[in-house]
């Protein structure tokens, strides 16, 4: 087992090795409280501030009419938002040309539903429904776990937020980071990632049968926040930059979505870090910057007491040398 012959299509031609194709029935399948129907896209793109573009892969929302492979889609992939205790289905449909999985990072389900190919299956030629029930509110993300260095770098990830069960004593619409946790008014999801264009020309199974395709060596040229170029665009893009009223509380869900270590600096604002990796901290942590490595998440509360504009800077460091690779910037505007 563990081998599959060549299959082609968008994302390139090529054979794949050490993949575990399958799309079986879900053990213990029940009717869910929430259903996400995800397809995949293999021919998206992202254009940077300098005019250059790279190919992007990702997940589509089939329920919203997303396509099934050859086209494009949103980057990052559509976020998932669920409530603690719900039974959730993530139905992933992949055609016979490719293999992918969904791993809900930080969610800890059974082996079959963990989305790791060699411990279960790489989904192809059908649909597998991941069944899980989140037990802890917080910030997570989902990503493909097939040929992971490549598929995650290509963009196959999206946000995953678990909200607490609403507190019946709270006014309707109250938003909390976790049960009995801090209330927030405004929310931002900052997934900070880096892009090496050289990787974005590879086909989906690149390197799996051996040979040097450079997956040990990530030399990013672009630095992005939640799918937006951090050179300039993220300073003002309304999906990234925050505009809030003085007196409001902001929850920033910071996700280290790249592979090199990072530092996020809040430009003079002090964050009250209340949770990390989907777990509340025993005591909140006050800081003006956070050092993080791949896949860590930090939930940060801000309550600025004056109006103004603060520039947030993510600095990316080479995993070996520590050299600064680049920066991405966005803003918090308090009006």
């Amino acid at each position, binding site marked *: 087992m563990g081998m599959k012959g060549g299959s082609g299509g968008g994302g390139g031609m090529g054979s794949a090795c050490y993949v575990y194709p399958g799309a079986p029935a879900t053990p213990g399948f029940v009717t869910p409280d929430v259903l996400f129907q995800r397809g995949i896209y293999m021919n998206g793109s992202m254009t940077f501030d300098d005019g250059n573009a790279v190919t992007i892969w990702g997940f589509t929302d089939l329920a919203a009419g997303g396509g099934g492979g050859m086209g494009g889609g949103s980057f990052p992939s559509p976020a998932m938002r669920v409530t603690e205790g719900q039974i959730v289905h993530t139905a992933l449909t992949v055609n016979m040309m490719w293999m992918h999985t969904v791993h809900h990072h930080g969610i800890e389900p059974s082996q079959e539903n963990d989305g790791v190919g060699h411990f279960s299956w790489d989904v192809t030629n059908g649909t597998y429904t991941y069944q899980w029930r989140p037990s802890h509110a917080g910030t997570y993300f989902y990503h493909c776990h097939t040929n992971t260095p490549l598929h995650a770098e290509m963009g196959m990830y999206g946000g995953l937020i678990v909200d607490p069960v609403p507190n019946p004593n709270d006014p309707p619409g109250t938003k909390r980071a976790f049960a009995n946790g801090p209330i927030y008014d405004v929310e931002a999801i900052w997934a900070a990632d880096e892009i090496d264009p050289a990787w974005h020309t590879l086909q989906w199974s690149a*390197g799996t049968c051996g040979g040097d395709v450079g997956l040990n060596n990530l030399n990013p040229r672009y630095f992005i926040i939640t799918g937006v170029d951090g050179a300039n665009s993220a300073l003002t893009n309304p999906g990234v930059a925050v505009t809030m009223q003085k007196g409001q509380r902001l929850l920033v869900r910071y996700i280290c979505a790249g592979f090199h270590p990072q530092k996020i600096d809040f430009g003079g604002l002090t964050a009250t870090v209340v949770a990390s990796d989907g777990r509340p901290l025993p005591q909140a942590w006050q800081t003006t910057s956070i050092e993080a490595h*791949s896949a860590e998440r930090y939930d940060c509360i801000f309550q600025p007491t004056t109006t103004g504009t603060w520039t947030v800077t993510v600095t990316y460091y080479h995993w070996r040398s520590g050299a600064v690779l680049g920066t991405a910037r966005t803003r918090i505007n308090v009006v």
Partner: protein
Amino acid sequence: MERRAFLKAGGASLASALMGSGMLTWSARSEAATISQTLYITDGTKTMPDGVSLYVKGYGTTANTPLIPAPSIICQEGDTLSITVYNMLSVTHNLVIGGLVSGSAPIASTGDIAPGGNKTLTYTIPSGAAGSYLFYDNKTSYNRFLGLHGGLAIMPAGISNQLYSGSPTFVKQQFWILNDIDPALNTAVKNGTTIPTSFTPRYFTINGLSSRPPGAAGHGDPTIDALYDPRSRLSGHIGDRTLVRMLNTGMCSHAVHTHANHMEWLTDRGTVRPSVWKKDTLYLRNNLGKIDAIFPFEAPPDAYPPVTSGHFPMHLHDEMSQTAGGGLYQFGSMTELEFL
């Protein structure tokens, strides 16, 4: 073989409590002992997952076979370590015990060991020294990358289930010693040519091995496959809380990610954390970074229907480390978390 005749100083005289394989086993003692070990600095070759054979050096227990990492040593505060090191190679080497806090000076050293010579390091462990240590060769900045490294666990005196006195408790303990290998370095050392000034690692190991996924040659062989190496793999029933002493001897910083359970993060770079955070991903620094964390072996909390068994990965999330030779995803630094 090992010479123990001189090991008469101090209290009880013990053969070194080291393991060539398997978990660290430990029983606390009420009195101090001398822990002795003889190691041989020697060289050899190791075959990488893509078939490339590389020159390596290591501390072995025989004169001609390097072990990477060296056998782990476990002792307790108050004990005296007596480590005799024979240098079987033609250049000067040493063995130092790194400081508890990353970046601090080594706490003990053999000093230079000339080719063909030997030295004995003797060190009585003070109280308050409990923790996880890397011993390694610092005669050059890169000798530890070649394989000259090993783990030393110092237990609090008289305690068998805490990292430091008063820490959260565990029932098992293991090392995860991470290394990154750039063949250009190994080849330059072998050939005596100029050492590269910049490294690009191509192989990534945990306790000296890389993983081999199902279908690969060596899959399931605990001497080849890091998924099955009992030094690396965590295997337990619910409640088998396992202390993992993570030591980074390599070039790169890493993001240590466990599936199935969050870890209880106890220390960073040798310093006890102000409070215990539960993390699914931990930032393990390079430049001799280290982390102690407990993998709690709780039922995976988000399974529906609930489960208590299964197989899951621990892998590094800086995914370049999950490759070998520039490709071969799943042949990097990864092991298995087995819920029995």
